[in-house]
Structures are given as structure tokens and as C-alpha cells.
């Protein structure tokens, strides 16, 4: 800040209280004074429009190039005899949970094809649920006794042994499984590398093994193989990255062969997970991806809307400017000029 001392000569008279000139204290800082003139408004809207519409088109195009197939199966896999008693069907150990769906591929899908299960009305973001885990215990073998936040799924009922992994999230692990059969192709499901690498590396320990899991009276969901460390239990890792909203998808695996049009695929579902109790639906999703991920027409549409509205506004402003022009800085618009004798 350049200081121009207007009183350059150090005066001999007694201390002058004259303030020293600084741009700061005289409020004279150089500043850009943007005025939102119609020119600016129209230009801004035009630029936004011109910029956003192509991005929107690209995004939409990418999203449209994604092939997606969704099957709801919670209803289809419920035997009609249990239609009014779904809960007892799913809780019973004796009923046959296997169900087969036939699917004719409608569009060609290029590998890798991702398989998701989608749940709704499932509050993974409920406060009680979100916090019901212990990250320390998950990544550190020594901390298997850390059971903070895990209640009530913290210890075994009888022996008071710590449960690893503890908490409601792990306890309610999704346990439907899918197999895909086709006549001429081998559709193995690759379940590796379905979790985020950072979770696998740092949040789940490679020396932490499941212990006493699902050993209490009430079984919430899947059981874990106690010989595989948590860092390899990718289904668990995926499940434990709690979803943000009550409708969510989780990655189940991927099929690494292309599916041709009219391929007949038999989907064998083990319908184990109980969503009947709270009225949640289960879906199975096949999806390919692009650079921006799965099918997501919303982003592209939003871009198009913002860009389109911008162009619309730009045109409207131009029209308004023509129809009802206001000369820039016209003093007759000043309030005290508009109604004379303003001070009253």
C-alpha cells in the first residue's frame, strides 16, 4: 500500500494530529466497480448458454450410451402362497429361497457389465445405523475389543465375546446372491475390486478376521467367512460405505464378457434378505459405464436446462432492452426526480 505522506516535512510544531494518508484509511483502495448493465447480463447469459448446452449434450450423450437393465425381484421371487405372509416366508429356514428369472438381452452390452442390487425404503443413513460401527476395530486387530457405538450388536449374548465386525451395519449385511447362466457363454461374476481402493487399503485391516459374527439369536443378514480378512471381504466393505439416501444401489460384481442382443440369460437369485418386513423393494441392475459413470440423464438435462434458460434470458433481455429501453444513468430515474418535492 503506497503511503503518500502529504505532510512530508517533519514540522517543528507540536505533534500534529493530522491523520496520515493511506489508501486504506481514506477508503481509496483501487477497486473494480462492476456495473450489471444489460450488456453484462446478456453477455453472461450468452456465455453460460453457449458453454453449458454443449456440456449438457455431451453428458446426456454419455449417459444415453449407457445400457441399463433393471429387474425388480422381491415380488417375483415371493411364492404366491406366501403373498400375504412374506415375512414368515423369508424368515423360515425351510422355504426354498431360490428363484429364477429369464432375461433376453435387448441391447448389446459391452463388458464390463456391472451388477448392482438396489434397495429402497432402506435407511442406511439413519442416525442409529450410520454410527453403529467401529472403524478402529475394523482396521486394527489389536482393537477388536473396541466396541464403542456398536450396541446392540457388540458382544455375543452368552459369552460376552466381542463381535468382529461389530455394529448394526455389518450385522445387517445384504445376503442375496445371484448367479447368471447362459447357454453358450460363461458368465462368471467377478467380485474383486468392487470396493473403493481406499476403503480396502486403510479402513479394513488385512489381519482382522471376522469373529463371533452373526452368533447372536437374531441374524441380520449374511455371514462372513472367518478365514478371510476383512480387507478382502469386499461385499462387506461395499455395504459398510453407508448410502446417502434411502434408495441406493450397491455394486455386487461385474461380468467381464459382452452380452449380445437376444442373448438368453437365466438369473438365479437366492432371495434371502428380508425387505418384506419394512416394505422395501429389491432390484437387480445391469449397467455399463462411461467416463462419467452409469446412466444419469439428470446431469445432462440440468446442464441443458441451465444453458437453455440462460439463452432464453439473454434473448428476453435483448427483447426487453429493445421494447423498454432505459438509458444508462438517466437522472430522471432518480427517486427524487421521479416525484418532485421528494422531501416531505
Amino acid at each position, binding site marked *: 500500500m503506497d503511503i503518500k505522506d502529504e505532510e512530508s516535512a517533519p514540522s517543528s510544531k507540536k505533534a500534529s494530529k*493530522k491523520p496520515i494518508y493511506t489508501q*486504506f*484509511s481514506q477508503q481509496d483502495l483501487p477497486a473494480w466497480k462492476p456495473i450489471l448493465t444489460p450488456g453484462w447480463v446478456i453477455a453472461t447469459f450468452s456465455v453460460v448458454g453457449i458453454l453449458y448446452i454443449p456440456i449438457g449434450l455431451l453428458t446426456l450423450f454419455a449417459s444415453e450410451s449407457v445400457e441399463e437393465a433393471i429387474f425388480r425381484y422381491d415380488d417375483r421371487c415371493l411364492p404366491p402362497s406366501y403373498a400375504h405372509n412374506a415375512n414368515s416366508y423369508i424368515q423360515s429356514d425351510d422355504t426354498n429361497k431360490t428363484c429364477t428369472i429369464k432375461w433376453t438381452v435387448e441391447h448389446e452390452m459391452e463388458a464390463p457389465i456391472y451388477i448392482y442390487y438396489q434397495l429402497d425404503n432402506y435407511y442406511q443413513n439413519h442416525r*442409529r445405523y450410520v454410527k453403529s460401527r*467401529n472403524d*478402529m476395530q475394523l482396521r486394527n486387530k489389536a482393537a477388536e475389543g473396541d466396541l464403542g457405538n456398536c450396541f446392540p450388536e457388540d458382544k455375543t449374548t452368552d459369552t460376552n465375546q466381542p463381535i468382529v465386525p461389530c455394529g448394526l451395519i455389518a450385522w445387517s449385511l445384504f445376503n442375496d446372491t445371484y448367479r447368471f447362466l447362459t447357454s453358450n457363454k460363461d458368465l462368471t461374476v467377478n467380485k474383486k475390486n468392487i470396493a*473403493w481402493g481406499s476403503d480396502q487399503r486403510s479402513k479394513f485391516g488385512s489381519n482382522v478376521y471376522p469373529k463371533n459374527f452373526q452368533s447372536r439369536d437374531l441374524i441380520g443378514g449374511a455371514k462372513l467367512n472367518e478365514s478371510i480378512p476383512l480387507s478382502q471381504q469386499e461385499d462387506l466393505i461395499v455395504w459398510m460405505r453407508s448410502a446417502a439416501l434411502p434408495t441406493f*444401489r450397491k455394486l455386487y460384481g461385474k461380468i467381464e464378457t459382452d452380452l449380445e442382443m437376444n442373448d438368453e440369460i437365466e438369473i438365479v437369485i437366492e432371495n434371502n434378505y428380508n425387505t418384506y418386513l419394512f416394505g422395501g423393494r429389491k432390484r437387480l441392475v445391469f449397467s455399463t459405464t462411461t467416463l462419467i459413470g452409469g446412466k444419469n440423464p439428470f446431469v445432462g438435462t440440468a446442464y441443458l436446462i441451465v444453458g437453455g434458460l440462460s439463452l432464453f434470458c439473454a434473448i428476453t433481455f435483448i427483447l426487453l432492452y429493445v421494447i423498454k429501453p432505459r438509458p444508462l*444513468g438517466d437522472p430522471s430515474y432518480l427517486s427524487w426526480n421521479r416525484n418532485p*418535492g421528494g422531501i416531505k
Partner: protein
Amino acid sequence: MSINNNMIDVLQDQKWESIPWKKLQVGDIIKVKQDGFFPADLLLLASTNADGVCYIETANLDGETNLKIRKALEKTWDYVTPEKASEFKGEIQCEQPNNSLYTFTGNLLIQKQTLPLSPNQILLRGCSLRNTEYIVGVVIFTGHETKVMMNAMNVPSKRSTLERKLDKLILTLFATLFMMCFIGAIGSAIFVNKKYFYLHLDSSEKGSAQFNPRNRFLVFLLTMFTLITLYSTIIPISLYVSIEMIKFIQSTQFINKDLCMYHSETNTPALARTSNLNEELGQVEYIFSDKTGTLTRNLMEFFKCSIGGEVYGNGVTEIERGLAERNGMKIDENKSANAVQERGFNFDDARLMRGAWRNEPNPDVCKEFFRCLAICHTVLPEGEESPEKIKYQAASPDEAALVIAAKNFGFFFYRRTPTTINVRESHVEKMGKIQDVSYEILNVLEFNSTRKRQSVVCRYPDGRLVLYCKGADTVIYERLADGNTNNNIKKVTREHLELFGSAGLRTLCLAYKELHPDVYESWNEKFIQAKSSLNDREKKLDEVAELIENDLILIGSTAIEDKLQEGVPACIETLQRAGIKIWVLTGDKIETAINIAYACNLINNEMKQFVISSETDAIREVEDRGDQVEIARFIKDEVKRELKKCLEEAESYFHSLSGPKLALVIDGKCLMYALDPSLRVMLLNLSLNCHSVVCCRVSPLQKAQVTSMVKKGARKITLSIGDGANDVSMIQAAHVGIGISGMEGMQAVMASDFAIAQFRYLADLLLVHGRWSYLRICKVVIYFFYKNLTFTLTQFWFTFQTGFSGQRFYDDWFQSLYNVIFTALPVIIVGLFDKDVSSSLSKKYPELYMEGIKNVFFKWKVVAIWAFFSVYQSLIFFYFVSTTNLSAKNSAGKIFGLWDVSTMAFTCVVITVNLRLLMICNSITRWHYISVGGSILAWFIFIFIYSGISTPYDRQENIYFVIYVLMSTFYFYIMLLLVPAAALFCDFVYQGVQRWFFPYDYQIIQEMHRDEVDNTGRAQLLEVGNQLTPAEARSYAISQLPRELSKHTGFAFDSPGYESFFAAQLGVYAPPKAWDVARRASMRSKPKIGHKK
């Protein structure tokens, strides 16, 4: 306070001992020296002047500048020396301490006699001793019991109106918070259900109460508390801290250091004594100003005169200057080289100086004019008898100015003896000749407020008898001789008087009359008779004077300028254009006050004036009867009648569109009754409709009452400005109190919120600093409101998706640092640097200030608009981010979790909210860029670090690696481009439409001056206008003055009685006279002076 450490002489053991004021006790006998202040309320015992008389100046109490006389009781005259004074033994009985400055009742018991005491013997604290070597007095009241302190009020703690409105906003936010929590809690109580088995809500064990479906009411309550902590961000706690910081810097760095408000003559910068009220300065609607010392300099200067129908004096009054400037002319202040500069004399016209008057058309009239000035007065010369060194002691500065004028015209009055006046006359017989002439003074017909004139009968050395008379135009004109020449002069002089009067000058008419010795002798006999009569002497003297003061010949008139402070009329004009109404509250008498109102352009002849005065014949008549109860009742009725009449008239004008502007003049006594609760509403209605209001003869307490009437009754924002102790209570009563600093007195400054050196700095303080502060604080408050509401609402929308469980959307740290780091600094920068228009434009277009008076920028409407955009933006943030949540986010098909989504949303919020700030800025400095960029950068730095580490502590690692996960996806960047644009879209449309179709005034001004470089240099603004020669400018300015047949001729002369003043010198006993303070206060026998029709 240092004032109480001043030293004063106290009588101890027959000696004067110096002790500090604070040690004074009731009953002490003290000595006060000339020009000293009285440390307490004193009873005057003795004075070095004969007759126990002393002169005091009461300017600190009532603003009056002429000296007052106090006279000790005859019994105590002798106690002048310490030896004698120590013999004084007596008892004083007096009233309880009270705040009435003009009354005192008590008795002095001395030598077994009971002597009644009157205000005549009382010296009040705050006054000072003049023209008296020293006095001896007894302390009656000290400290807080003194009358001046009883007039003071408790120091109120002041908060700005905007802050009080802010409290209401905060309350609204609390209500909103409660509503949101209530909705959430109800939802929670409904939601909890055993069917959600994965939540284990059936657990009846400990710690499950919060979501126990069997006790939904408890769920409701507990969720309520959870949600209150969750949504607490809606309350902008850091707002108060930020505002305090902003205001502190505004006052210490901007106001205190403004070069435009630095007064170099007194070396005084402006001083903000509180930082609470900066933005209040931007909303002031009423200014209450003291007169003496604030508007005027307390300096009378001989300015112009009219002699024999010719106007002399080239001076341009401030008001003329202002008018000329308004009409685009620049008046050159070139004084002719030979202009005499002296205190009391500001007259420049070569035609009269150095004997040049001999060449004027009427040299004889000029001669009489000067002689009248030199002879007809009651001034005492003091010091060496040379024109340079002599000092004149006059009871009023007006008188001194006239004698000084005579001196400069070459009629040097240098000596007064009891019977003669000696004048050294130059150029009388021929150019260059100087001669000493001694005029024998035969009679003095003294000035009083009934007569409004003063005459002297003198005998020339050659035996000629002449009566010189000066006085108000009304009384002089009545007594002029008829005659053709005289008539012509009368007519012309009348016009001149009106001209002077409308320029705010104080006028006097001069006249003379030659007396035939026989006529004089017979009159003188009657005079002596009257003088020696024992009862009704005054009345008889007046009657006798009437006999000789007739058939006068008009010489001309004088015009004295009650010197205004620099730039006052211009400043007042500016402030009035800014929509501020200015009231003058003064202790001075009505004529003086009206004069100043004219001089300041507060009143002009085009205005309809309402005068409510207690000096009417009817009131005087009742007062003469002396029944207090009846007086009170009568005056009250009278005031009520007047008020009603004025109000009706005012309303009739108000309804007609082009009615004249209104002005109200009211005196203290009427005000006392008008402030009565039953009449207050009427007074308020009337005065609020008036363009300007002048209250005269008001006590300090009344000043405060008037101020609070407007403050509380009309709920307008008030500002009081004053310089003396008598203004303290008014300064404290107003929303904003301004003290004039740089003078001797500090009381006003100590009580004030801001101190400035000159009245004219008010324009800078209000129009520049006040307006900016108001704008800035409004922006800060609204922006805080917006950013916290937006942030909290995203959280609120999330609550609906979580089964109303009260799950946090954002990480704890995000939430805490949002206000402290990510959005804190830019808004402070706006609070410091935002400028809509430059300071010079602020003053050039004072009308901009009206936006503050109307509170345009912090109305509920504005809040509602911002709330609307908050809701809109928060919906965009939440739903844009969550709607796209379902599908895969990268080509590896992976899905985001809760914390990815929330971090994504938070990033969008931080960026948008900071960009939104740039959109409200009128001027963007590099600090804006730095702070806005810095805030966004701070968020990224924070999240990079925060999500990059995992701690060994037992905590949830929710955010671990989240930002890296986000940034590894294309989706993140696409959203980052989309969401802020979509969120700000509506705001931008609104701003564009608002500016184009409903522009604020400041926006038009911005556009008008868009191409100008900002540093216009403030002085440059004054340069606009054509260059005219001084003569042209003057004649133009004068021609612009209201020419309508004026009724105001500007008489406002006051002088103490001749006899009492000179009693000492003449060795003649004169009883205390009627004009003293006590009498003035009771306002008796003061006739109405003819300003009215």
C-alpha cells in the same frame, strides 16, 4: 475527570489556599478569579467591583453570549479580603437541589437578620466570571447537586436501530429453528417403527430410548434436542463478532483518520468515541443542533451597512455564497488589498474606508452614521488608547462590533469619563486631518427589551445638542420625522433591512435629531424628575424618553453578522437535500434564533412560519397578575389553542400539493406546556410536518425532552449536536450524540458518541461514513443470514431422507468451520471496503442518503427475498447432489456413500456462497479476490489434509479419503460446474431485472459516473461552475435571495442596561435592573418583536 482536579482558592485561616475542585464542600468560602469557571453553585458574597456586582457569562448553560450581572446582597459587600471574609458568619437556608436554572429561593441569616436570596445572587456552575477581578462566594451545591448537573441525565447505553432490528431477525431465526426442529421431531416420532429391523428399534435395553417406538413422545423430545444442535447453524453467532470487528475498524481507521474531517486550525481529527453507532449515522432523520459554538462562532462582526439609502459592504454571507454555488457560480474570495481584518469587523468597501466616504453622495449622513456608532453605546474602552491596542468591554458583542466599526471608519472612541465620550475623528474637516473631540453625554436613555432602542443626548464641543438613537427598525420607523427626503430614504433603507434580514444579518436602525436647547432643558427637567421618582421609576423613565425620541431623522442601518461556522449553510442545505430535518434548539432569545435560522437557510421568506411564543400581550397581562396557577392554566390553554390552529393550517397546506414549506418557532415556556402529555401528540404532529423547527429559550432538559419526544414519539432516528455543557443531556438523549471538539469545553465531547471539530463535517460523517456503514452492515447482516440459512436448509432437507433421525449431513468439522473459516473473511472485507459510490458522489447527491432513512436495505421485504433465494439454493444443492446419487460415479462402476455426497454438497455450498458474496459487491478490491479465493482455497486445503489422514483415536473415519475419491471422478467436476451456476442463476436474473427495471438511486448514480476515475478529489467538486467576478457573483447571489416583501428585518440586538452597567464608573447608585437573568428567565415584560406580520 481532569476537570475536577482544577485548583480553586478556598478560605482557610484567613488565607486563600488552593485545593482541587473535587475537595470542595458545601459551606466553603471560595474566591473565583476573572475568566475562571465556577466550580459549584455559589452564593455571591462580594465582588471587587463596587456595589457587589459581577458579570458572568452563561454560554455554557443557555448559549447566550451577552454578559449577565449578578449582584450580592448589600450586607455582604465587604467580605472581599480573606481577613474580612473569615469573619463571615451566617446561615443559609435554601431549596432542595433542583434542575431549574432560573429560579432560586432561600434566605441568608446574618447578624440575626433574615435576608431573602434570589437567583440574582447565585452563580451557577458552568458559568464563568467576566469583567470582574475576582469574587468571593459560598458554596451552596456541589457536584451532582449543582443545577447544571441536575439537568444532566443518566448516560444511556446506546445500540443502533439496525442492531435492534437485527435482534428481531435473530428472533425470527430462532422461531424458524424451532419450527424446523418441531417438524423434524414429529416426523421422527412417526417414523420409528419396529419394522426397520436393521435399526434394532425393538431393543429395550439401555441407550435405545431415543428411538424407542413404544414411547414416541420421548422420541419426539429427544429428537427435538438433537435437531436443535443440528440446525443451530441457522443462528449466525459469529455475526455479532464480525459486526463488532467491522465497526471497530470503521470507527478507528476510517472515521478517526478521515482527512476530510480533520480541522487543521484546531488540529482536531474526528473522533468516534463508540463503535456501536456507525450505521446509525446512515439513518438519521432528525438533527437537533445547538446554536452557539455549533452553528455560529460566537463572534459578531460588522458586516454591512446602509447609509442614506446606499448599501455598503462587499461581503458575501455564507448563505449568499451557498446560493451562488447552487446556481453554479464560484465566488472569489478576493478581499481588496486594503480591507481591514479585525475581530468584530469584517467589512470591505473602499468607499467608506480611509476617509473615502467624503466623496460619497451623502458625506454628511455618513458622518452622522459614524458619530452615532461612536457615541451611542454603552461600551467601556480598556487598555492603551491606541486603535491597535485598545480593548472594548461591552455587554454584548454586537455593541463592541459597532464601536470597532466606528474605529475603523476613522471615529476612534478611546476614552469614556462619567460625563464625556472622547472620539478621535479623522478626515472630518478635510482629508487626513485627525482631531480629538470630546462629546459631553447629557442623558442616556437605556436599552431594554420593551423599548428596543437606545438613545444618547450629547453636546458637541460647539454647543450643538444632538440625540443619537439606535434600535429595532420597527420602533425607529414609528418615530421618524415626516419629510420627502426622509421618506425616500426610509423606503430604500427598509428594503435594505429586509435584504439584510433575509441573509440572516442582525440589523439596527440609526437615527438622530438635533435638539433645541430650550426644548431639551424642559425635557431634561422631566427626565430628572422621573429618574428620582421612587415608584414606577422605570415606567416613568420610558414615558419621558418617548417625549424626546420622536421626529428622528433616519441615518441608515447596520448589519452585523453573527458569524457562522465555516460552511454551515452549505452543510445544512446538503443535509436537507438528504432528507434530514434540522431543528435548532437554543437557549438564545427568539429573535436571535430566528436570525440564525435565516442565516443558515433553515427558514426563508417563502416558508409559512408558525410562531408560538409566550411573549404575547394576553399572556403578559395574566403574568402581571402573578397568580402562578392561573398563569399556568392560561398559558396552557393559549398554547393548546395555538397548536390546534397551526396544526389545522399545516394540514390544509399538507393536503394541497404545492403548499409552502412550513417552519415552527416555539419558545421554551410554551414548549414546557406543549410537552405536556396531553398536548404532546399535537406538538409532534405539527413539528413533524414542518420543514424546520426552531426552539428558543429552552433549558438543557427541554432540549433533551424535545429530542426524546421525536425519538420515542415519532420513532425516528435522531442526532444531537452541540458543544457545551448545556447540550449534554440532549446529546445523551438522541440516538446519536455529536460533540464539537477542539474548543475549550469538553463536557459535550465527553457525553458524545462522535466528536467532530466543525458542524460542516456532519456532511462527511453522515453522508459518507454513515451511509457506507449502513450499507455495509446491512450487507453483512443479510449475507450472514443468507449463508447460514442456506447451509442449514440443506441439512434440513436431508433430515427428511433419514427417517427424521437427526443424522448429520455434514461432518462435524465442516459444520463448525463453515462460519469460522470458509465463509468468514470475505464478508468482513465487504463490511470494510464495499462502496456503492465514491465519497464525493455521496456528497454531491445527498439524496442517496434517503435510502438509509427509509431503511431500504434492511426491510423485511429484503430479508424475505434473500430467504427465498436461500431456500431455492439449498434445494438446488441438496437435490442436484442427491438425485444423481443412484448410479455409478466412475467408469469402474463404483458408487458414492453418504460422506461422498455430503462433501460434494458442502464443496458446492462453500463455492456458491463465496461467489454470491462477489455478486453483492459494488466495488471489488484485491482484498475481495484474496479473501474469496482464500476462503475457497482454505476449504480445499482443509479437506485435503483432513481426509488424507487417519488418526489413531477411536473415532469414525467417515471422511477418510473422501475428497480424493471425489476428485478421481469426472462427475465431481461436472457437478462443480453445474451446481453453483444453477444455484446462482435465479439470483443473477433477479439482480439483472432489479437493476434494469427497478433501479435503486445509487445504481443510477453509479451508471451516471461509470466512466469516471474514482479519485475525483473531493475539492474538485467545489470547482464546478462558471467563474464570475466577485461583484457579479455578489449581485447575482443577492438577486437570487427571496425578494418577496419580507417581514423579517433581522433585529436581534440586546444590551444590558446602561445605568447598572456604568453605575460603578459613574459613581451613581443604581438599583439592580430588570433585565437580569432571573427576570429574563421568567420572560416578563418582553414585548413581541416584529418579525411577524
